[in-house]
């Protein structure tokens, strides 16, 4: 696409749990300004890749290089967990939604802006006595939260507890919360799971808007409709290995992909839906 370094370069990533190799020698790239989808049958190792990228697992071997827009390169595999979001600007959502259920929608978005509002602990403590630039920062944070609440259509529910929202709204809120950290790469773990067709469409629109605002996306998704519609680039995993990599059209016509989804016959119930969409 361009000559500059890819936003995220995964090189020879291997992850073993005891004797089980979940991901083996995986390499792919996610380019800046694109939506990259990672697909594959259940158990292919997609979430494991995600957990390695976002610092929840330490890979057994291999490298994960993130190049920030300002040119700084970071090796994600050696950053402490919280630095992934803070320094590398990689945000994520979870397959099982992890909102702060007992806090309001607005509070969820405020927590996401923690590091911007409170760069140092000392500063955070001094704010108790009204010192520092806390007030203006809080105003900025509220504005940003309001912006994202507007984006996801939850502005009127800002003061309701997150745990009381319907499922689809919780999914969108989780995305908004991740966006409030100001990421350069947003990783979404099955964002369309459990959504009805209308909600899926809205989600696609939201993701396209996010991309349009300059944030790149990496997503794991089972809903092939969503993947094919919005992805610029698709990586297909099976049994921890990459079996295909290319544009949605290329991947859709790749015999290996069709074989992985249809061929072995031991896949679970999600296969037909996926294959249908792929066909």
């Amino acid at each position, binding site marked *: 696409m361009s000559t500059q370094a890819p936003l995220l370069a995964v090189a020879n990533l291997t992850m073993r*749990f005891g004797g089980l190799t979940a991901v083996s020698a995986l390499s792919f790239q996610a380019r800046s300004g694109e939506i990259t989808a990672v697909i594959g049958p259940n158990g292919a190792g997609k979430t494991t890749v995600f957990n390695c990228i976002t610092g*929840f697992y330490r890979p057994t071997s291999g490298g994960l290089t993130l190049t920030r827009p300002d040119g700084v390169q970071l090796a994600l595999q050696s950053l402490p967990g919280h630095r992934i979001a803070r320094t590398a600007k990689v945000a994520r959502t*979870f*397959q099982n939604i992890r909102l702060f259920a007992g806090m309001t929608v607005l509070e969820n978005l405020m927590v996401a802006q923690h590091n911007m509002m409170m760069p140092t602990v000392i500063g955070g403590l001094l704010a108790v006595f009204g010192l520092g630039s806390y007030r203006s920062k809080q105003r900025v944070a509220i504005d940003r939260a309001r912006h994202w609440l507007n984006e996801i259509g939850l502005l009127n529910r800002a003061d309701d507890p997150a745990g009381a929202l319907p499922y689809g709204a919780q999914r969108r809120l989780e995305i908004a919360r991740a966006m409030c950290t100001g990421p350069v790469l947003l990783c979404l773990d099955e964002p369309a799971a459990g959504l009805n067709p209308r909600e899926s469409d809205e989600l696609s629109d939201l993701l396209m808007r996010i991309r349009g605002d300059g944030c790149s996306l990496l997503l794991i998704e089972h809903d092939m409709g969503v993947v094919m519609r919005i992805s610029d680039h698709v990586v297909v995993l099976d049994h921890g290995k990459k079996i295909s990599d290319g544009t949605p059209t290329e991947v859709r016509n790749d015999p290996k992909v069709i074989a992985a989804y249809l061929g072995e016959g031991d896949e679970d119930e999600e296969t037909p839906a996926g294959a249908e969409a792929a066909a």
Partner: protein
Amino acid sequence: MAYALQQIINGVTLGMIYGLIAVGYTMVYGIIGMINFAHGDIFMIGAFLSLMGLTVLSALGITSVPLALAITLILACGIAALYGWTVERIAYRPLRGSFRLAPLISAIGMSIVLQNFVQVSQGARDLNLMPLIPGGFKVMEQDGFVVQLSWMQVMISVTTLVMLAIFTWLVTKTSLGRSMRACEQDIKMATLLGIDTDRTISLTFVIGAALATVAGMMFLLYYGSINFYIGFSAGVKAFTAAVLGGIGSLPGAVLGGLAIGLIESLWSGYASVPYKDVAAFSVLAIVLIFMPSGLLGRADIEKV
């Protein structure tokens, strides 16, 4: 060398007692995920019941020591098991499925109740028991230092091992054990599969209380002196042992008990007696820093 051996013998004996109590902590924790703070006090009640049993039997004119011990053990275990059952029924069952800290506070309350109940009903003074099983044999002698293994220590070890064997059989081979393990894995699923979880949990408390009573009786026979307060420190030590071994793991509880017993006795023997608890707790902290799930605990893989 000889001195070390003696300390190890003493440490193992003490460790057996801790191990028996620790099993009760770890079992309850494994199944309902709560720290049963009153467990140490059940141990104390077990010791008191044993002393009462022995006193009553001697008043009734039963002079055969083995017979008196056997009858007392059975009676004390039975009554203490009733205590365990009642505590669960009154203080924990109404809070099942409630928030995490409510059962903990309730357990602390129950511990206070049991302690003060015994203090009020039996007084605060130390009660003593004449040694019932005197003597022992010489293991070795070196430089004039005689390593003694008393019959008491032999009996404690043998009884503990027998109890643990019975208990292991109970957990691995019986349907009760199967229910217990099922509840430990997933209590909701176990309920759906038709396991009477209330009954299983009650029985867990009953078994735990019985084992603690065995430990209480051993403590009484070994040290010959008890008061209403022994439950606290023994309980904390046994809970430490359970955590050290990896809470939820039954062999871990016994291993942890032995470890704590050995640390205490070796530290007392070579460093200083007053700081033996500090040594035990410090080892716990250090082990947990490097092995956050304890010695034999299942590693806690973060599910994301």
